[in-house]
C-alpha cells in the first residue's frame, strides 16, 4: 500500500526520532543489536531486489522504445567510466603481471621450467586477475561516483524535481550508467589483459631469460580462446553489479551530506564484496562445466 515509485527512496519519516530513544531506558542488549542488524540486512536485500526489478522493467520499456534510450548520457558515461580509467587500469594490471611473473620465477627456475611462466601469467591474468582488478578499480572509481552523484541529487531535491518534470529518474540516471558500464568494463578488461601479459613478459625476460618471441609463442599454446572468453565474459556481470549497487545506494540517501558519504562507502564495499562473490560462483560454475 505504498506505491512510491522507487521503493528505495523513502522520505525521511518524522517519527524516526522515536526509534532512537527506545522506550526502555536500558541500552540495547547484544541480541537486540544482532536482531536489528539482521532485520536491516534483510530489508536492504529486499530493497535491492526490488530496485533490480524496477530497473529490469525500465530497461524492457526502453528496449521496446529505443528512442527513449539516452545515448548522449551513455556515451558520456562510457568516456568517464571507461576511457578515463585506461591509465590507472593499465598501470595496475601491468604491475600485477610483473608481480605474478616475479613470484612464479623462483619456483619455475628450480625445476628448470622457465618457459611455463607464459602459462602462469597468461592463465592467471586472463582468467582471473585482469577481470577482477578492473572490476575493483571501477567499483572504487565509478561505483562510488554513481552513489555520490545520485545521493547528492536526492539531498538537493533534484530527484524529486526530475519526477515532477515527468522524467523517470531510472531512465535518466540509472540505465545509461548500467549500459555504459556493461560496454566499457569488458573493453577495459581486454586492455588489462594486454597490459598484464606485457608486464609478465618483461619480467620473464629479465628474470628467467625467456625472450618475447618464445613467451608469445608459448602463450598462444597455453591459453585457449575459451580461457580468454571466460575472463572477458565475467566483465559484463561485474559491470552490472557495480552500476546497480552504486545507483541503489545513491537512491537510499536521505537527510544530509553525511548520509551521502555513508552511502558512497557502502556502495564501494558492497560492490567489491558482490564482485568477489560472483567471481567465486563463476569459478565453481566453470569448473563444473569443465571450461
Amino acid at each position, binding site marked *: *500500500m*505504498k*506505491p*512510491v515509485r522507487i521503493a528505495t527512496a523513502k*522520505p525521511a*519519516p*518524522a*517519527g*524516526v526520532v*522515536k526509534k532512537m530513544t527506545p522506550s526502555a531506558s536500558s541500552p540495547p542488549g547484544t541480541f537486540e543489536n544482532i536482531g536489528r542488524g539482521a532485520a536491516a540486512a534483510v530489508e536492504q536485500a529486499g530493497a535491492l531486489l526490488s530496485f533490480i526489478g524496477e530497473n529490469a522493467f525500465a530497461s524492457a520499456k526502453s528496449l521496446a522504445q529505443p528512442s527513449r534510450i539516452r545515448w548522449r548520457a551513455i556515451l558520456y558515461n562510457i568516456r568517464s567510466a571507461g576511457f578515463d580509467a585506461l591509465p590507472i587500469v593499465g598501470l595496475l594490471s601491468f604491475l600485477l603481471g610483473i608481480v605474478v611473473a616475479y613470484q612464479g620465477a623462483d619456483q619455475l627456475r628450480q625445476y628448470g621450467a622457465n618457459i611455463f611462466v607464459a602459462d602462469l601469467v597468461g592463465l592467471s591474468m586472463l582468467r582471473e586477475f585482469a577481470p577482477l582488478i578492473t572490476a575493483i578499480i571501477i567499483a572504487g572509481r565509478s561505483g562510488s561516483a554513481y552513489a555520490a552523484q545520485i545521493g*547528492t*541529487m536526492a539531498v*538537493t*531535491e*533534484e530527484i*524529486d*524535481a*526530475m*519526477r*515532477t*518534470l*515527468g*522524467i523517470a529518474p531510472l531512465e535518466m540516471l540509472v540505465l545509461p550508467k548500467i549500459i555504459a558500464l556493461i560496454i566499457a568494463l569488458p573493453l577495459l578488461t581486454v586492455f588489462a589483459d594486454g597490459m598484464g601479459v606485457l608486464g609478465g613478459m618483461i619480467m620473464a625476460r629479465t628474470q628467467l631469460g625467456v625472450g618475447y618471441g618464445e613467451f608469445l609463442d608459448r602463450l598462444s599454446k597455453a591459453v585457449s580462446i575459451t580461457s580468454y572468453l571466460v575472463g572477458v565474459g565475467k566483465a559484463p556481470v561485474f559491470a552490472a553489479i557495480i552500476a546497480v549497487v552504486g545507483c541503489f545506494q545513491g537512491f537510499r540517501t536521505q537527510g544530509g551530506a553525511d548520509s551521502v558519504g555513508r552511502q558512497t562507502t557502502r556502495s564501494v564495499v558492497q560492490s567489491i564484496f558482490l564482485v568477489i562473490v560472483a567471481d567465486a560462483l563463476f569459478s565453481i560454475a566453470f569448473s563444473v562445466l569443465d571450461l
Partner: protein
Amino acid sequence: MTGPTEAPQAVQTVIEMSKVCTRFGEHIVHSGIDLDVHQAEVFAVIGGSGSGKSTLLREMILLQQPNSGSIRVFGVDLKNLPDEAALALRKRWGVMFQHGGLFSSLTVLENVGLPLREHTNLSDHLIDETAAAKLALVDLLPEVGAQYPAELSGGMMKRASLARALVLDPELLFLDEPTAGLDPASATGVDELILKLRDRSGLTIVMITHDLDLLWRVADRVAVLADGKVQGTGSMLELARMEQSAIRSFFDGPRARAAQQQHSAPNKHKINKEPSSKPKSTIH
C-alpha cells in the same frame, strides 16, 4: 471546516482532498485532511514545523501516496495512476522546490528549457528563446542563463526554479516555502513576483509557507494545519477572528501582530503597489 468565503458559488475546484491520512510507521502525520483548492486563487497551507505541510504538498504532486483517503487534481484521482496519466497531469502543473531543485550539471537556461526538451519537439533555438522569456518573466537578467545553479544566490535560485516551473505554461503552480531563507529585500521581490503571476489569468497557486507577510499580501485563502487536521480555512482576516488555539498561535505573537497591522489596511491585497521596504516576519 470551510469558512464562509465571499467567492461566487460556482467556483471550479482544482484540488480536492478528502479524508487523507498519512503515517510514517507509528507516527501519524495526517489524520483526515479535507481541503479544496479553487481555480485561480492563491491557496496557502500553513502550520508549525512537523505539522505535515511538506508531506501534504508531496502527496499533491505525486511524490508520495497517502495511506488512505483520496486526492483529486483536475478531477483525476491520484491513486494508482498509470504512467501516461501521471505524465499528462505533471505537464499541467509546475513545482518550485524549497531549495530550487535545479540540476547542478546544467546551466540555468538549460534547466529552464529541460521540460520543453523532454516533452516537445521544438527546435533548440526555440527552446532557448522560450526559456529566456521565462527568465525575463521572473526578473532574472539574461546573463544569469549561462550560469550554473551553484553560482546563484538563494533568491536567484528560487526565481530560476520558478521559471522552470512556468516553462510549460502550467494551470497550477506549487510553491514550497517560496521566501524561506531569503533576506527581506529578496523575499519582498518574491512576494511581488507571486502577485504578478496571480494576475495572469487562470493560474492557480498553492503554496506552503511560514511567512506572514507573504500570507497577508498574496494569499486568497489559507488552511491552518495542526495535529494532523485542518484547523480552519479562510482568508487571513477570517482566520484572525477564529478562536481555536492552534490558529491563535499564528496570530498572537508580536511578529504576527506587526505583520497584521501592516497589511490589514482597507485595500488589502487587491492592489499591486505596496511599500517595498519592510521587514519580513516569520513564525518559527
